[in-house]
């Protein structure tokens, strides 16, 4: 009900603004046509009539010029001094040279209160630069908030510009990248600004799962504004210059009496390590934008496109000898799942998502024989690779993104189970763990699973098991698929009996190996680790034409 209302309202807004511009355009033309015949004789050097001293052509030029310098050189210098680039410089770096096609350069805010109507307070384009362009030749829509104009604050016009390119992106089927650098709502505009946020939120939601949406936070982003990045698929941040929080340190102090700095409250480090709000952080604007270009190349343009395939120099049948010795003999000893991932994927190129948050699970993008794949792996190096609340949520969100955008998922399993304890139970591990289970079960993209070592208990089921429609499930010779570790199992089966050690050895012999799963067909094959890359590449080739459809529903009800 609410949503429908907003759609109606905002599209009304769109139409009315269109009407406005049309009216202006018509007026001028009309005036020129009407006035040209009687006046032309008097002023032969004037080709048309104008109310100001300047010709329209000159005014266009002037407006364009004004739009290009945003809030003016002084503010640009201030922006640079802070170690930040301007909105336009950012767009320039992000996109292929000369590929940017700008829209709404002439849009101005429509506020007439508090002296905002004065010419000095009007900036062509207002506080955001919008348009489309190319990244490595591929289409993308982009908006870049301009901190030099009213601190990048969001006016009705600002929101309208963003909504316009988002609508276009949706109709064409191309991703949207938002470069956020905004002080917040345009307070002078009041509810107009709030409405603008909601218009964007709605579009974020409608576009979710249709086109990839990426937010790069390059300055402040506070209050309600944070929900737009939060709704997008990926949020990246720039270290030391970007902040995300609902309320700033001053309000926090007055409400909860906590002393906290901006950086501690909502800096890149906080959000990439503690809160899990941001997916990655970069050193500075330039590094962030260059990395974003690289990241963009992994993504399909929309949910109508298959995972992109880039030219690949790494042989798909490359044997990876180092994998044969990577899993230690002692099943309690840790190893680095990233070593396995790097060795298997094309050119050791792995774009990790959330590398510093819930490190007991590793997720990220890579390519196999050129084709983009999503990689999920338990990380035995951190908390034995167990699943807990944070890692489940991290994994689930990543799996759902891949599924939404036709990106095959490769899962490396070494999981001893879910993390026990009151902190986890009270925190709702049942509910959160279910998300990962849900995400894997729901996913219809090609799913390939490699059990490298432990696959214990419920966590075995969760991690893209055969039972959740895994297409190809492999086990390495070191795999142990069991309900639990030998010690725990024996204590239950042989409770109170003697010869526990003997029973344990028997259990190990029986279950601490890949056979119980293999004889039941729960793994398709037991493979030499060195052949893993070769096998996965060939499986992906076949699975490229996989078709699987879930039952019709309005939408599913993931346990949020």
């Amino acid at each position, binding site marked *: 009900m609410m949503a429908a209302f907003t759609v109606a309202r905002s599209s009304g807004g769109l139409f009315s603004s269109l009407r406005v511009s049309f009216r202006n355009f018509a007026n001028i033309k009309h005036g020129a046509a009407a006035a040209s015949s009687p006046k032309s004789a008097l002023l032969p050097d004037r080709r048309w009539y104008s109310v100001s001293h300047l010709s329209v052509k000159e005014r266009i030029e002037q407006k364009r010029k004004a739009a290009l310098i945003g809030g003016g050189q002084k503010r640009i210098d201030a922006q640079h001094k802070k*170690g930040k680039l301007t909105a336009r410089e950012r767009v320039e770096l992000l996109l292929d040279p000369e*590929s940017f096609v700008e829209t709404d350069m002439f849009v101005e805010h429509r506020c007439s209160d508090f002296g905002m109507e004065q010419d000095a307070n009007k900036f062509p384009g207002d506080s955001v630069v919008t348009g489309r362009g190319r990244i*490595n030749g591929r289409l993308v829509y982009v908006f870049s908030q301009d901190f030099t104009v009213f601190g990048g604050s969001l006016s009705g016009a600002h929101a309208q510009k963003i909504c316009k390119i988002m609508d276009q992106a949706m109709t064409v*089927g191309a991703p949207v990248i938002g470069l956020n650098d905004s002080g917040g709502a345009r307070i002078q505009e009041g509810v107009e600004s709030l409405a603008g946020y909601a218009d964007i939120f709605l579009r974020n939601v409608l576009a979710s799962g249709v086109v990839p949406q990426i937010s790069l936070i390059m300055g402040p982003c506070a209050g309600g504004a944070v929900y737009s990045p939060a709704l997008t698929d990926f949020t990246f941040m720039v270290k030391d210059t970007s902040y995300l929080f609902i309320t700033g340190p001053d309000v926090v102090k007055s409400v909860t009496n906590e002393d906290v700095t901006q950086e501690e409250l909502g800096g890149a480090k906080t959000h990439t390590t503690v809160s899990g709000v941001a997916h990655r952080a970069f050193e*500075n604007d*330039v590094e962030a934008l260059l990395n974003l270009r690289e990241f963009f190349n992994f993504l399909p343009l929309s949910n109508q*496109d298959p995972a992109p395939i*880039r030219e690949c120099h790494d042989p798909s049948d490359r044997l990876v000898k*180092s994998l044969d010795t990577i899993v230690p003999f002692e099943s309690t000893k840790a190893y680095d799942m990233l070593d396995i991932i790097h060795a298997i994927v094309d050119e050791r190129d792995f774009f990790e998502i959330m590398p510093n948050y819930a490190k007991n699970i590793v997720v990220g993008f890579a390519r196999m024989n050129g084709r983009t794949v999503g990689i999920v792996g338990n990380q035995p190096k951190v908390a034995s690779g167990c699943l807990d609340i944070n890692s489940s949520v991290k994994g689930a969100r990543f799996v759902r993104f891949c599924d939404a955008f036709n990106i095959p998922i490769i899962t490396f399993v070494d999981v001893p189970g879910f993390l026990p304890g009151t902190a986890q139970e009270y925190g709702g591990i049942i509910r959160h763990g279910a998300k990962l289970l849900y995400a894997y079960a729901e996913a219809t993209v090609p799913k390939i699973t490699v059990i490298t070592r432990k696959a214990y208990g419920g966590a075995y089921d969760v991690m893209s098991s055969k039972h959740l429609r895994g297409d190809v499930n492999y086990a390495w010779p070191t795999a142990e698929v069991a309900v639990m570790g030998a010690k725990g199992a024996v204590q239950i089966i042989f409770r109170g009996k003697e010869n526990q050690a003997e029973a344990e050895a028997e259990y190990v012999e029986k279950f601490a190996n890949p056979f119980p799963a293999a004889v039941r067909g729960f793994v398709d094959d037991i493979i030499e680790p060195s052949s893993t890359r070769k096998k996965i590449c060939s499986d992906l080739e076949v699975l490229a034409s996989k078709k699987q459809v879930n039952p019709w529903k309005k939408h599913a009800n993931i346990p949020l």
Partner: protein
Amino acid sequence: MAAYRQAVLVDRLLFTLKYASCQPCCGAVNHWAQYSTATACDEKTFDKILIANRGEIACRVMKTCQKMGIQTVAVHSDVDSSAVHVKMADEAVCVGPAPTAKSYLNMEAIMEAVRLTGAQAVHPGYGFLSENKEFAKRLAEEGVTFIGPDTHAIQAMGDKIESKLIAKAAKVNTIPGFDGVVKTADEAVKIAQQIGYPVMIKASAGGGGKGMRIAWNDEETREGFRFSSQEAASSFGDDRLLIEKYIDNPRHIEIQVLADKHGDALWLNERECSIQRRNQKVVEEAPSTFLDPDTRRAMGEQAVQLAKAVKYSSAGTVEFLVDSKKNFYFLEMNTRLQVEHPITECITGLDLVEQMIRVAKGYRLQPRQEDIPINGWAIESRVYAEDPYKSFGLPSIGRLSQYQEPLNLSNVRVDSGIEEGSDISIYYDPMISKLVTYGSTRAEALARMEDALDSYVIRGVTHNIPLLREIITHPRFVSGDITTNFLPEVYPDGFKGHQLEAQSRRELLASAAALYVTAQLRSQKILGPLRVSSAPMERGFWELCVELGGQQHHVQVTKSGDLYTVEADGEKVDVCGQWNLASPLLPITINGAERMFQCLSREASGTIVLQYMGTMFKLQIMSQRAAELNSYMPEKVPEDTSSILRSPMPGTVVAVSVKPGDTVAEGQEICVIEAMKMQNSLTAVKQAKVKSVHCKAGETVGEGDLLVELE
């Protein structure tokens, strides 16, 4: 002796077949004979030999055993259970946990392994139990042959003091100022003063350069005494020390001898081992550029005299110091196979391990002295997992994520005991391999060494190839003008990597720029039918800004096919290559000349790390515009490290000399870290109060771990 005894497990898996596929990695099959196989046709030696060692030397010995049709038994610690030497052996026995004292030095467990497997003989390799008379004795008691000299010879030569007395008696030149056992620091100073500075202090029982320190004054003598006695105690369980006259500008030249049980002995020419760091050898060659035939014969004959004097049998090495006037002095005799034995094998064509096995069985030596040739020239580089930028090499550890030996080149031999995926751990010697090249002349061997070092792919650990490459191309080394002080003399401020000249800088800039453009273009190559058509930039000209070593270079790149014309620093360079972005090796033709580059990393931010001339160079490549904008980016201030002491390498904390609240003077010792049997004293960079101590003696620390904070 061992407090710990693990149940000995026999690993019944035979890995021989598996290993067969990676055979070439232990030695190239080339048109030149590494060592002859002619002698061993119908001689029966042993059925089964146990190799009481690990790593490359264990593999090296097994290789000859396989050639001779002898079954092999490997021993290993638990962390080594999937090591190459274990896979290569016919049988393998676990002899204990990782620390060497509990595994490779665990005589009980090794004796048990011998019994269990029924090995008839034991080859000890070098290090570990190779010069342990007790071990040799126990083997003899059980009727197992020790492949090495008799206990008597080991004992006689193992003790530095006794060995000199014997050498003197055998009319071998010895170093003046020889002295006895030292008990206290004061006594050490007194002796040192009598001899006259400089003096050398070392553990009596130690082999090689381990624990050897040079003192130029009383204070250094005290310090040297303290360190050497500690090290002697920890490494050899014997804290006796030796102080003697230190010869300035010396060369370290050693004679390989080979003796049988029938009183015959041969000298197999010399090895020049003067290139050392902290008295450990880095680059060796055979023959020496310095010796004339007369000196060579004189040294060889003295070496044989000594061998005969102690009734030596098996292979051994007599080390000499040679001064600038070609006077030579006996240093010590190593009663084992030396690390650097391959270069002798290269120039003489003999397989020393085979000879050792034959001699141990009691066969007579076959070749006569006049049959021992010097064929060509051989050079050995010891490739270590260590950081050469820190005092010419501090150990580093890690997993070899990528590893590729340059065996595609002819006249290259690589003796190694690791493979891709192996771990270099803190428990053992950080040697990765011995890279040996051979040529009919020294220049040929050196040129081949350059190629081999350039094509050697090692990823995952820091290695010393940058230093090796610099040494073998240094004009002083090339001309043969070397001493054991070569490294400190040539790099008085420490090793800083290859210094680029105008031309080599241009080549590096051009290659990096071409690689960058290749990667940029490849990013646009999205295959398959596209719903939304792509609009790749079709251009053949790039203006780039390349930052190298803090300097920005304007670089213009024009591309036509695989050929890039790069204008860097105002001069044009033609760069041509395969441009495989997945390969670690990048063979590139620059202005017609072939160069081998290695790409270590390539990041989205434009950072490319290339290995060129052995050294790793980090370049930052951006479009002109991106570079302009990049100038607005703030410099991130690195952490002030003067008040923080971090461990420069992984190892064990031996001693912490300060506690919180202490005031330390600049240069004062804060703690001592032991890694790979080396004790490293860490000192304060400034005068300050100790804020907190984060380590304690006995703890294991990783590289970069916080040890002590100062205020």
